[in-house]
Structures are given as structure tokens and as C-alpha cells.
């Protein structure tokens, strides 16, 4: 076995595909890419187009028109929102990572009664629609005095079924011998966790970190409900606020807002794409 990192050469379509096959494949891909990418590119284009043009069906900017962005930033404290989103995203992500990791470790490596039930209950929570929970959670958060705080925004989401599930799948792939070898070497349970399990699930951690960040960044209902003012609000609320509920929307400004809120996440995907795709697979292997 060569130990160099090998390229995938035959997966999917086959290495020795005929020329016409290859052309067909690229054609399909390009069409798909245009279809998938179009909404985003189109909005990007709109964000530089004046509203009067848009209403009259002109979607391509004729000049570098930045007014929409200026308007968006003027209409909403986007800078503040972006900071909030980052704080909530990063802290929330970190906590979700830690919580899921600890829980998965217990589920995989520590024998104790009731494990199976616990796991099933955790899985079942995924099926509870979030909409029925927010009102009660709002009251809980309020009782804790956490309205309008980052903590209030973050706390209800720090335990995630998805994270526990993915970590569990990943940890189950850690050979039992590694635990046994450290038993023999005299490591405690926590030492094994820190020294072996945490580094070994690194890929999943990266994956989940990106995923959690995206989810937190894109969350809408809870941030809206659990905040009453702009101090802790996130970009999605800002975007929502741009959208006028009565009368006509300023398409250009909304497109600009949508672009503003999407840029950090798109950048994350752009740079994290590879890690994501590696780590995501882990969840599927039992």
C-alpha cells in the first residue's frame, strides 16, 4: 500500500470514461452548477441594481451601484448584528461541540445501565418540532433572566442530537483495542477521553463546528423571540427587518442584506468544504 494521499480515480463514473461520456458529464455539471448557483448570483447582481430598475425588469447593474448596501447598513445595525452572530455562532458552536463530545463519549465508552434508552430518547428529541418549544423556552429563559443576552440565545441549543449522533458514530469506529491499550497503560477514563478520543474525532469536530456555526448563524425563530432589542440580535433578524411587511419591498436592499448575511457562511463553506465532506461521512457508518 502506498501511504501517499491518493486521488480518487474511479469513484462514481469510472476512470476510463469515453470522451463523449466526459463531455456529457461536464455538460450536465455545468448546467447543474448554473441552476444551483443562479439564485445566489442573481441576487448578488440585484444587490447592485437600483430599485427603480428592478421594478421595471432590469436586473443587471449598469454601474457600480452601492446604494443598496448603504441603505441596508443604514436601515439596520448590521455591524452590531454581525458581531452578535459571530459571538453566538462561535460560543454556541464551541459549547455544542463540548457537550456532544462528552455525551457521545459516555454513550460509546462507558458501560452503564439505561444507555440504550437514553440514546433513543435523545434521538427522539430530534422529531419534536422546535416551534412548539420556543414559547415555553422563552419563559424559562426569562425566568433565568437571560432575555436579550448571548447566553439566552445560546443555551437552549447547546445540546444537539445531531452532534451526539455524529460523534457517537465516529467514536464507535475507534478500535476497542485503543481503549484497552490505555487501560493496560493505566490511563483514567478522562485521560483517555482527552488524550485519545478528542484528537481522534478531530475531523468530526471540524465538520460539526462548521455545521453548527451555519445552523446557529442561520437560526431565525429563536433569536427573534428570545431577544427584545438589538443588543444581542443576529443578522437574520436584520435581514428579516429589511423585508417590509406592508407595501413594497426594496428588492435591491433586501438582496444586499441577503448577500451580507450569506457571505460569512458561504466563505466558511468555500474554505471548509473539504473537511466537511470528509467528516460528514462518518455519521453514516455504523
Amino acid at each position, binding site marked *: *500500500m502506498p*501511504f501517499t494521499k491518493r486521488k480518487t480515480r474511479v469513484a462514481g463514473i469510472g476512470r476510463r470514461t469515453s470522451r463523449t461520456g466526459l463531455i456529457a458529464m461536464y455538460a450536465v455539471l455545468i448546467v447543474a452548477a448554473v441552476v444551483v448557483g443562479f439564485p445566489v448570483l442573481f441576487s448578488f447582481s440585484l444587490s447592485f441594481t437600483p430599485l427603480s430598475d428592478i421594478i421595471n425588469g432590469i436586473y443587471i447593474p449598469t454601474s457600480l451601484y452601492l446604494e443598496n448596501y448603504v441603505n441596508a447598513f443604514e436601515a439596520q445595525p448590521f455591524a452590531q448584528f454581525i458581531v452578535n452572530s459571530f459571538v453566538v455562532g462561535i460560543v454556541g458552536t464551541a459549547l455544542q461541540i463540548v457537550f456532544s463530545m462528552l455525551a457521545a463519549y459516555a454513550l460509546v465508552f462507558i458501560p452503564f445501565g439505561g444507555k440504550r434508552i437514553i440514546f433513543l430518547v435523545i434521538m427522539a428529541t430530534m422529531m419534536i418540532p422546535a416551534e412548539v418549544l420556543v414559547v415555553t423556552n422563552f419563559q424559562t429563559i426569562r425566568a433565568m433572566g437571560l432575555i436579550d443576552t448571548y447566553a439566552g440565545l445560546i443555551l437552549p441549543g447547546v445540546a444537539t442530537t445531531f452532534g451526539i449522533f455524529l460523534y457517537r458514530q465516529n467514536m464507535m469506529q475507534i*478500535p476497542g*483495542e*485503543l481503549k*484497552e*491499550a*490505555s*487501560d*493496560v*497503560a*493505566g*490511563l483514567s477514563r478522562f*485521560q483517555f477521553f482527552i488524550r*485519545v478520543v478528542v*484528537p*481522534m474525532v*478531530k475531523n468530526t469536530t471540524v465538520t460539526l463546528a462548521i455545521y453548527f456555526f451555519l445552523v446557529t448563524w442561520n437560526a431565525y425563530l429563536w433569536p427573534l423571540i428570545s431577544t427584545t432589542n438589538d443588543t444581542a440580535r443576529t443578522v437574520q433578524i436584520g435581514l428579516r427587518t429589511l423585508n417590509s411587511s406592508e407595501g413594497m419591498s426594496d428588492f435591491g436592499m433586501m438582496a444586499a442584506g441577503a448577500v451580507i448575511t450569506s457571505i460569512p457562511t458561504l466563505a466558511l463553506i468555500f474554505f471548509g468544504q473539504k473537511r466537511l465532506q470528509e467528516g460528514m461521512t462518518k455519521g453514516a457508518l455504523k
Partner: protein
Amino acid sequence: MAKIVCKDLKKSYDGKTEVLAGINLEIQEGEFFILVGPSGCGKSTLLRIIAGLEGVSAGELIMDGKLANEMLPKDRNLTMVFQSYALYPHLSVRDNILFGLDVKKVAKDEQERRLAEAAELLGLTDYLDRKPRALSGGQRQRVALARSVCSQAPLCLMDEPLSNLDAKLRASMRVEIRRLQQRLGLTVVYVTHDQVEAMTMGDRIAVLSNGRIQQLGTPLELYNHPANEFVATFIGTPQMNMAIAEVQPEGLVLNDDVVVPLSAEDRAKLPAGTRWKVGFRPEQVYPATATSVHQVDVSVVSSEMMGNETLIFFNVGSELFTARWQGQHRVETGAALRVSLDPRYAHFFDVNTGALVRAAEDLDEQGARSTSVVDESLAARMEAAPAAPMA
């Protein structure tokens, strides 16, 4: 004092089938103890019980004189080389080798010293900063061994530690491990399926099958006095040729087919009874000479020439017999062959129970076939063949 004592040790994973059905053995301090047996017979299970990674269902495990059934692995002061290496993929070779030493509060410079020594010994000095994934299978196995060496625990358990090395490397590792064990006075329990390792490395071998120890003894005891048919066919390669033998007026009839003529002297020497299972080792199926008494004529099924030796296959009844001769011999398939099957070299087993009735003769009291290399007659015999110039 015995290092490890197993008293009627039983183990079942599912509460139904007993993987170990009552193991009794004592392993002495400083002994190199080998466990062999067919795949799935429970070798790894026994090793893991000794390590404390697996509980016992019944019986006692005594280590250093103390009942150890419930002792935690880390309190047993041992080290283990896992069949699958158990290397930590995120740690460098160096950290893998030193894994756990800090927990045992071994000082940094002492760690470095041991590391240097072990790496040197196992030829890993150049690889210390690599991750296991960048090592070949053989190198990985050596890292696992190095970890064991560094830990310097007095008891070392090894589960097929050389299985993934190529022949050349395996040969040198055999020598190194044995040397190390002797130098440090380690007690080693060693699982293998390799005949050569079993025969050359161990002080004693236990043959496990069906959850029980079939035989326990030195390598040569097992080879020369196999306790039963199972051990006889398990030890030695190519495996021992087995046939049902019956004494008849015309001689010893093998598998109702081949008749080995018997002299009166031969008949007198046969064990009690008239029907046995008999076993001939392939290297004791000789070509018949003009003076051979025990010659039988067989027809060659096939042959394999292997450079330094030739295997010749022929049928005895429904069984395929193998003869193993030194040198290269061109034998045509279907050729008639006259071989000598001397009952002196045969092992006799009870035809029902498979228990040994009588081992082959021609062995000294320790079971070896000759005593000293400076014996002139041996030399004569050994060189006799090639010394005669070819026509």
C-alpha cells in the same frame, strides 16, 4: 513462584457456548510461554483475561500469588502487544511508544533513554516523528513492540505480534524478541499461529482447541510426543500423514489400501491392539532402498519442487500422503514410487479417542533425535548424499 496460575478458568461470552471450558496452567516467572491453536479457539480470549480486559465466568486467575479475577488492568503491571497493534493514529511514533509512561510517572530523561534503546533495537530510529499511517504494516508492528519494550513491565502479553512482517524481517524479529526477553528476564505469553515461531521461541507451548488445553510442553515434546491426533496434525508442516492402520497377516494395512510388510520383530514392537490411527511425518516417508523391509508401491499424484526440498503426494486409500525429501527431484505425475513406511517412525493413536498410544521410536530421552553435532556419524549421514560426485 509461578507468575500466572489459571485454575479451571472458564469463559463464555453469551452464557451458552464456552469459549474456554476449564483452563489449568501455570506460567513461571521468566518463562517464554506460547499459546497456539486454530483460529477462534480462544487464544486471544485467554490473553485478554490475563490482561484483565475480559472477565472470567468461572475459575480463578492468580497472578503473583494473588487472586486477580477482579484486579484492574492497570494494577496488573503488564504490557500487551495487540494483534491489531492498537497504535494511536494521532500520535507520532515517539508518542505512541512512550504512551502511558507519564501516567506511570516515569521521569522524562528515563523515558528518553528507554525510547532511544527501543527504537534502536527495533530499527525505528528514523521513523520517530512519523504518524503510524505513514508506516508500512511491518513498521507498525514494530512500534507496538517498542511500546511494550519501553514499558518494562515484568509481564508481557503478545498477540500474534509478527503476523504482518515479511519472512526476512520476521526471522530477525524472532531472534530479537527472544534475546530481549532473556536479557530483561521477562515473562512472556505469546500467541501465534506460526509454526516456526512456536517451535523456536517458546520455552513451553500450550495447544488450545475446543476451549481446552490439548497439550502443554516443550516444543520438542509436542513434536515428538503429541498427546493426541489433534496436536500431532497441528504441529509440524507439512502436516503429519494420518491413516487407519490394521494388523493383518500380510502386514500393516493402511486405509484398507496400502499394505506395509511387517517383520516378526516389527510385529513384536507394535503396541497392544490391532487397529489404530497411525501418523507418519512427511520427512519420514523415505524412498525405499533395495534392503527396505517396509516398502510399499504408490503412484505419484503430484509433486512440488521447492529448491531445497521436494514434496511428493500420493494416495493411501482416500487420504493424500505427503513425502518431503531434501533436494530437487523431478517426479512425473503418475509415476510409480516405492517408499518406505517404517512403523518405527509412526505415531500410534487410539482409533476412537485419538489419544496417543505410542510415539515414534528413535528419540532420545529428551525427545530429540540426536545429541551432538560433533558426532562423526551424523556428519557422515548429513553430507553423504551430496558428497558423492554425480555421474
